[in-house]
């Protein structure tokens, strides 16, 4: 399994063979506050890199969730739809959003590693 990569839109992505698991970062959940609603892409649908692939809402506002790479949605995490507070509790593991069969592995190269993302997140919240 490859290392976890991160996008500027605060998604994380973990590649296992040609299937990527995608969720939102802990930093994102801290900015959003209590998440009370999640909407995921449909299984079987295709999503394009940097396109919208879901929505999360806090008590305050709605935010789009983007996909950091292109591919076909092969699985979604119904558990976070049923209980969105799981996203605040464990954003970078059990509260993943969707899995993609990726189209172009080279898209992974455009993303940040953990150190770069942490630095990026710190800069924008400063």
């Amino acid at each position, binding site marked *: 399994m490859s290392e976890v990569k991160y996008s500027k839109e605060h998604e994380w992505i973990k590649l296992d063979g040609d299937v990527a698991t995608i969720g939102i970062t802990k930093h994102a959940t801290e900015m959003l506050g*209590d998440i*009370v*609603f999640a909407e995921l892409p449909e299984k079987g649908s295709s999503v394009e890199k940097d396109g919208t692939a879901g*929505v999360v*809402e806090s*008590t*305050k506002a*709605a935010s789009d969730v983007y996909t950091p790479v292109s591919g076909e949605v092969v699985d979604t995490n119904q558990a976070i739809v049923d209980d969105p507070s799981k996203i605040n509790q464990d954003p970078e593991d059990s509260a993943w959003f969707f899995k993609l069969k990726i189209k172009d592995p080279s898209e992974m190269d455009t993303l940040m590693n953990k150190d770069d993302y942490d630095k990026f997140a710190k800069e924008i919240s400063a």
Partner: protein
Amino acid sequence: METKKTSLYQLHQDCNAKFVEFAGYQMPIQYSEGIVEEHKFTRNHSGIFDVSHMGQLFIYGGEDLIKDLEKIFPLDLKNLKLNHSKYSFLMDKDAGIHDDLIITKTKEGFLIILNAACKDNDFKILKEFLEDKYKMVLDQNRSLIAIQGPKSSEILNDVINGVKDLNFMSGNWFTFENQKVYITRSGYTGEDGFEISIVNDFVDQLTRELINKGSKLIGLGARDTLRLEAGLCLYGHDLDKDKTPVEANLKWAISKERISKGDFIGSDIIIKQLNDGVSKIRVGIKPEGRIIAREKTKIFNQSDVHIGEITSGTFGPSVNGPVAMGYVENEFSKKNTKVFLEVRGKKHPASICSLPFYKKSYVKEVN
């Protein structure tokens, strides 16, 4: 214009508040525990809200003042008992709402609590109407805090003895550290609670004592979810100059006595609407499922005709689901009417429901 800070700013910082600008003030939107926990803590225990940005208008006068204020507000102020409060509105001649407010009869005259964003304009309107006949003070030297929730009476009474004997929507002067504080049993959460007017220099000490007794500071975020579950209106969203109290379904707040005579600002329209009905009216709206329909969401009927708009919508932590209110054409305002809400381009089913979403727990009669 520089944003103002309330006298509790330091305490908010000490409690790790996240701030937002609201009506020209730096106000806490939430603290470290977050909106959902703060909301639940208020419902189950006791929460303190800094509402010092709101206007505290003292108007001094006697019989003449009562007569003059009755020309403005649709209230029977003559028969209002000393230290009793009423919810009311400042309207224009077309009964459009400039502001909603709480007015309390005091020994010296009246105390009116005004919304932060409206207070300066309200002051101008009232001063002009009252033609400078009375001393009017929009008091900058006093802070206002609310303590809300089932444990609040016990906690506040421990610090300021006697408050537990106040009835709902009534108040009195008490003392704290030799300072005169005016306390009413009222609030904006649907819970039992109090609002406390105290000089700026002592509000920090009082609030810290209440926190030591087990209450917690609660931000504007939870204040909004609490009031919406309680079915209470927020000015600038559910109420504004394009809506009348009858359309806002607040006719209970208009004195029947005064309607028969009809000599207050906006009375022509109010009487006409009470007799003929209104074309749009405020209702509660319960979305099916978990979808949240926020302010400005369009409402459609079952034939896909646009019939209204959401004015407030969020997730209600105590209801554990989405809650909303808005205005619909009168013929679609009946309870259980099926409607559709357009969120992100898709229509989602919802139904018209009665308010509140969460049962109010006001303490009606203590003595």
